[in-house]
């Protein structure tokens, strides 16, 4: 089956990102395909490229990137939710006249339409919220 995940919780504050990553590896191990993870609400903070968790904690940012590298899962971030929360990629930073950026590939800022698309495209969409 084709799966999509919707992640709404900030990393470490709630268990949402942990649960989503855990569920992702389990569904992949069962032979399903994970098309895309969409980040909304405080979930957009998962895309913060500078995350530096303690060595003895799971590195959630790296785990998302590994999901993309190994399985081609798209990591899409709601652009409206991200901009207000300061999660800008290089293009948006430029557009807003700011130097530096917080979000970079494999995470991409996209419209909410991609979440609606995802819901139509996949067999199962599972939400992990704070």
């Amino acid at each position, binding site marked *: 089956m084709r799966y999509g995940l919707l992640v709404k919780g900030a990393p470490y504050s709630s268990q949402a990102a942990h649960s989503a990553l855990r569920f992702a590896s389990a569904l992949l191990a069962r032979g399903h395909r994970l098309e895309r993870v969409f980040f*909304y*609400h405080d979930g957009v903070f998962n895309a913060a490229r500078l995350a530096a968790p303690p060595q003895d904690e799971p590195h959630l940012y790296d785990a998302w990137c590994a999901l993309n590298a190994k399985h081609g899962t798209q990591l899409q971030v709601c652009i409206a939710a991200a901009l207000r929360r300061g999660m800008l990629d290089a293009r948006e930073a430029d557009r807003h006249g700011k130097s530096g950026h917080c979000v970079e590939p494999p995470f991409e800022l996209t419209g909410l339409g991609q979440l609606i698309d995802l*819901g*139509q495209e996949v067999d199962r*969409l599972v939400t992990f919220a704070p």
Partner: protein
Amino acid sequence: MTTPVPVEGDLLVILRHSPHGSSWLREGLDAALVAAAFGQSVTLLFMANGVLALAKGQQAGPLGQKGTAATMDMLAMYDIESLFVANDALAEFGLAQQDLMLPAAGLEAEAIAELMAGHRQILTF
């Protein structure tokens, strides 16, 4: 007013949070508007604290936070006219149909499952 439940629809958005206290309500409404703009048939269900999204007389917050009342007014423009509200939550807040800013069909708890079964996809906010 309790009306028959529609049995079909692409997307059901369930709104359970009140205005101003968090961004859940606005983000749920935004998802509904985008889905409608993409041509999906969208139904809204206001339940629990979410029924307060329908309260009349909402205003901007003290810092100028605009809240969600203006977005509610845009629903019709996007052809989102299938609005339901949980009767038990209305009663819990002492609200009646005439207190609502938009017409929404009252739904008894037993009908919610039917509404959910009739939609291909459900998002909760």
